[in-house]
């Protein structure tokens, strides 16, 4: 769908929403008090009665690559926490489902302000391992970095659009940071434990989700409209799909990755065109 068509449809949809909802005067919406964290229901910005849901599964075709083992011998404090040898999470496949895929709304959102939730998202370092491996957060939302290991970790973020930071946590402690610009994806590494890796996706809206071990994801409370949904995986690259979702509708989509996609360049820190009406990043 080209730009002017999208505009027309959005306008039509918005008019419908306004007509049906009868609340807001304009499409700018009102500031929500405390919208929920990314991936959860948006706050009062979007009227649930006129919103839809996109759910789906990320599947993997073929034989997944064998998980790479991590030699933690140099760090007994962490190595002790494992009953089975720890492995890297470059490709977590179970029963044909791919986990840790970052699925988000790339284009198509109406021009609404989604205020940052005050509740933070936690990135935990436990067993010399980032939990979660892929994380979704909103612009301005607190990122709570936690060191559960009690040994030195440093959290070295390497964004392209945001200002990065490289901070240490020598003992069990928590530190907060936030990001000011949408970006997909920000790599995070620990220089003390070179196998540690995480990725953070920053949006200025809450419509992002991460597929679980069963491959499922869900984007809820979406304003009705036409969207471009992108799925990003650290080893297998990106895929997009166009989805139209109406009010009170649930659309199901599937992304399928396969082994052949490995080794292609995976975009990091790309500038995003978030809304049809806004060029560039905020």
């Amino acid at each position: 769908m080209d730009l002017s068509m999208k505009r027309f449809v959005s306008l039509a949809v918005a008019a419908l929403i306004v007509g049906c909802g009868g609340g807001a005067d304009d499409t700018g919406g009102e500031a929500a008090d405390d919208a929920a964290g990314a991936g959860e229901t948006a706050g009062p910005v979007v009227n649930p009665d006129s919103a839809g849901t996109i759910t789906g599964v990320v599947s993997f075709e073929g034989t997944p690559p064998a998980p790479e083992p991590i030699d933690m011998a140099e760090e007994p404090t962490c190595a002790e926490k494992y009953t089975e040898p720890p492995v890297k999470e470059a490709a977590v496949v179970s029963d044909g489902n791919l986990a840790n895929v970052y699925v988000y709304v790339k284009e198509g959102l109406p021009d609404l302000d989604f205020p940052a939730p005050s509740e933070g998202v936690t990135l935990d370092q436990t067993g010399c391992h980032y939990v979660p491996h892929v994380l979704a957060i909103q612009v301005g939302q607190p990122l709570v970095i936690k060191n559960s290991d009690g040994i030195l970790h440093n959290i070295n973020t390497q964004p392209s659009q945001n200002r990065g930071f490289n901070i240490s946590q020598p003992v069990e402690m928590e530190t907060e940071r936030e990001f000011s610009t949408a970006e997909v994806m920000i790599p995070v590494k620990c220089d003390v434990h070179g196998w540690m890796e995480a990725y953070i996706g920053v949006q200025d809206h809450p419509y992002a989700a991460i597929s679980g071990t069963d491959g499922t994801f869900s984007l809820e409370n979406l304003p009705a409209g036409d969207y471009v949904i992108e799925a990003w995986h650290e080893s297998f690259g990106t895929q997009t799909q166009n989805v139209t979702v109406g009010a009170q509708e649930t659309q199901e989509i599937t992304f399928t990755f396969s082994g052949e996609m490995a080794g292609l360049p995976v975009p990091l820190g790309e500038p995003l065109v978030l809304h049809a009406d806004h060029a560039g990043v905020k």
Partner: protein
Amino acid sequence: MSTTQLVAPNVSAQHWADPSHPDERPFIRKYVFSTDHKVIGCQFMFLSLFFLLVGGLLAMMMRWQLGYPGQPMPGGGVLPETMAPGGILLPEFYNSLVTMHGTFMIFFAIMPLLVGMFGNWLIPLHVGASDMAFPRLNMMSFWITIPAGLIMVASFFVAGGASGAGWTGYAPLSAVPEYSGVYMGQKLWCISLVILGFGSLMGAVNYITTIVNMRAPGMSWFRLPLPVWALFITSILVLLAMPVLAGALIMLLFDQLIGTSFFLPETGGQPLMWQHLFWYFGHPEVYILILPAMGIASEVISNGSRKPIFGYPAMVGAIVAIAFLGWVVWGHHMFMSGMNPLLGSSFMVSTMVIAVPSAIKVFNWLGTMWRGSIHFHVPMLNAVAFVAMFVIGGLSGVFMASTPVDIYIHDTYFIVAHLHYVLFGGSLFAIFAGLYYWFPKYYGRMLNPMLGKIHFALTFVFYNLVFFPMHNLGLAGHIRRIYDPNQYGFLEPLQPVNTFITLSAFLLGAAQLVFIFNLAWSLWRGQRAPANPWNANSLEWSLPSPPPHGNFTAMPHVYRGPYEYSVTGREADFWPQWEPPDGRPAPDHSPDGVLIGDQKPASREPHR
């Protein structure tokens, strides 16, 4: 040495059209934006002592972490989360502390104390001039130091914090923010030091011109007090070394700001080039930090022993030799750097040789005291401590000059012990000696001698308890600049030593309160100082304390060297440079040598 032949005056007549006079200018021109070298010297004193405190505070925080690793620091709650969450110092903040402690101490404390304060206090009066050759340039050299200091302090409070790359700022760690986590702070560090360098250059130009051109009649080169020789040679070092630092800093700034790659290997740069440039400045810099101290020590030891300096020409020759050789030893900081090992051999030889003139000076100080009549006034106590501690610092230097031994001790606490023995045990004790000695002249009041002796004793004891054990830490393999030595199995057993050093350091810091109190109290309530409390010989002691604006009422004449103590056949055990030889009273002095209108009658005994 004691000729009375007058040398033709080397000053313009116009210069003496303006002898000393009351200063009628408004307060702000008289005490704030002053061109009077004495005021500027006092300004440098306050500024530098403030930064000495700052540097000391930073060291206390480092010592807390080393003594009690990972534990919340008392009072640490006032620090922001980026430095010390919950009072626990973060490793990157610890690296900043290490860096800024060295930076503040070297550039903003010791250098301005020795070169800014003593240079200003001593040079015009010792040569017999009414002020520096360029009084306004002199004022500028002080006032430019202030923004440099503010920028350096400010670097703590920008995002990413202050520089954490060491005071040596090795690239690429200093050149690439992603490696250190420090963004603006490193740039501010560079800018601050470039500005400071300008101030030093202004001072150097002024000092050299004043010493060469403005010596009073009779003040030949070999009648100059040794502090002047030391400051003269130091100024030449400053003139030649500071621009190299500025150049290196600007290159580093460019690498950070505009995409050059002087020091970045991926794009054709050379990390080693930073080290060569930095140490080409850095080694002369450490001689800048010790030579004036040696000059001061000579002055005080001769006075305190009531005996001429042993081997004055050799002392001058040693100063020149140290300065000259100091240009060809810089590579000894780089033995392990990856430079050609054959260069290591040549730098080892030159470094070993530079020990010789330092040894000459030590033996000459001993020779001065030998068969002297030693008065243990507070300046003398500090000056003797200087000699004793400098000997230790100098001897420990021989170990690291030997390249194979340096393989083991480079970047360990053995080096930290060495540098603190020469910079604190050496320079700082000499600075204290000079402060107690000349404070009366410029502030018109004596520093309390009892408090002075207490301060000296406490400082001397705790200082040795802090730094002597560091030799042994280094020999056990304790590396430098590490936030938590317990991470290494072979260093864990040394934790009690670190804790002991930390406690001693806290006591050392507390002992300085005695000095601060003495300073403050004496400024207001100290005993009024006579013109010549130490019964000394150089020209400043012929003037009231403090001397009037313009210094001398009439052009002084110099009849002998500055170290004519206990001259055979004379009743007094000193013979000032300004006293005419034939028994005539000196201008403004009574027949028995007392300054007319002096605060109190002079005794023939130096003040104790």
